[in-house]
Every structure is written in C-alpha cells, then in structure tokens.
C-alpha cells in the first residue's frame, strides 16, 4: 500500500503548522517521520528563536 494512504499525527502536525503559520520555524523533539513531515511543508529547523516547539516521540 503506498504511503499516501497513511495519515499520521506527524502529518497532522505539519498540516496544522503550515496552515497556521506557513514558512514558520520550529525546534523539534522527535523522530525522523516528524522531521520529514515538517521539512516537506517548508518548516525550517531553528534552535535559537523558533516560532514553535514541536514534540513527537522521544
């Protein structure tokens, strides 16, 4: 089954951030799936002054 048939909480988080603040930055605590989902919607990683702190799984 192709991956577009899956909708995860990581993808829901990415969609939420894209719609709330397109192009925002985030400090992320989480695994690769969350990081990839955020990268895919154009969110940049920032550990100095991010717009969001995003927590997934440790």
């Amino acid at each position, binding site marked *: 089954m192709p991956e577009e048939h899956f*909708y*995860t*909480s*990581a993808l*829901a*988080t990415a*969609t*939420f*951030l894209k719609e709330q603040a397109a192009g925002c930055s*985030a*400090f992320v*605590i*989480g695994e690769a799936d*969350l990081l990839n989902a955020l990268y895919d919607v154009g969110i940049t990683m920032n*550990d100095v*002054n*991010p*717009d*969001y*702190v*995003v*927590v*997934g*799984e*440790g």
Partner: protein
Amino acid sequence: MDTLTKATNLVLKGAKLTGANSNVSGPIENGIAPACRALIAPIEMATGIQAYFCGKPNPLMMRTGLNMLGCHSAEAVMVGDRMDTDVISGMESGMSTVLVLSGCSTKDTLKTYAYLPTMVLNGVGDIASMAKAKEE
C-alpha cells in the same frame, strides 16, 4: 534532559508549544516507553503553558482526513482499538465508529466510557468477512 531544558527556555522566550499526539506511553520490547504526552508534560509544568495537540483525539485530524478523501463524515467510518483517542475523535467528527478488540481494549473497557462505538468487532479481519457475507 538538556533537550527538555532547551525546549522549556524556548517556550518561555515565546515559542508556541505543540505536541504531535496525546499518547502517554507506547509499547517497546521490554515494557513501555514514555510517549509524546508524557514527554511534553515537564515543559508544560516548568513554563505553566499548555501544549496544543494536533493528532487524535483532536477532531481536526479527522476533518483534515475527510477533506483529503473528499468524503462527508456521514459516509466515513473510524476504526480503532482505543476508546479515548480513536472512537472519541470519530464520534465527535460525526463519523460511524468501530472499536476493534485486537489491540488494547476489551469488552470491559466499554463500561468506563460515557459514549459507545457504533459497532464492536474482534479485529479488522471481521470487516472483510462481513463485506464478503453481504456480497453473497
């Protein structure tokens, strides 16, 4: 710990606190590991700021899924093994709900909730056998 301290100070400086899901723990090989809800709790306590959770049971995730499918909630079914995330989010989004007993719930689990799923099945395999029976 360093990461939590970093996150705490970034939230105090104005970063908005968001969690992917509200799972308190998840299964690992030799027991359970703290999951998103438990990991974000220390940041919430230290800052006094509540996180916003995007995944289940937030109905936002159900509504976005329905939009992606181009589907009305009345034509959709939410299937899951948890009352407190899967069934509640389906119900609150206007979908029919199926609780499967192949995961973390049993028949007794139902007694502790004020809401019920539309249907209870032993597992997702039952859906295929029911569809097949209906065809015949």
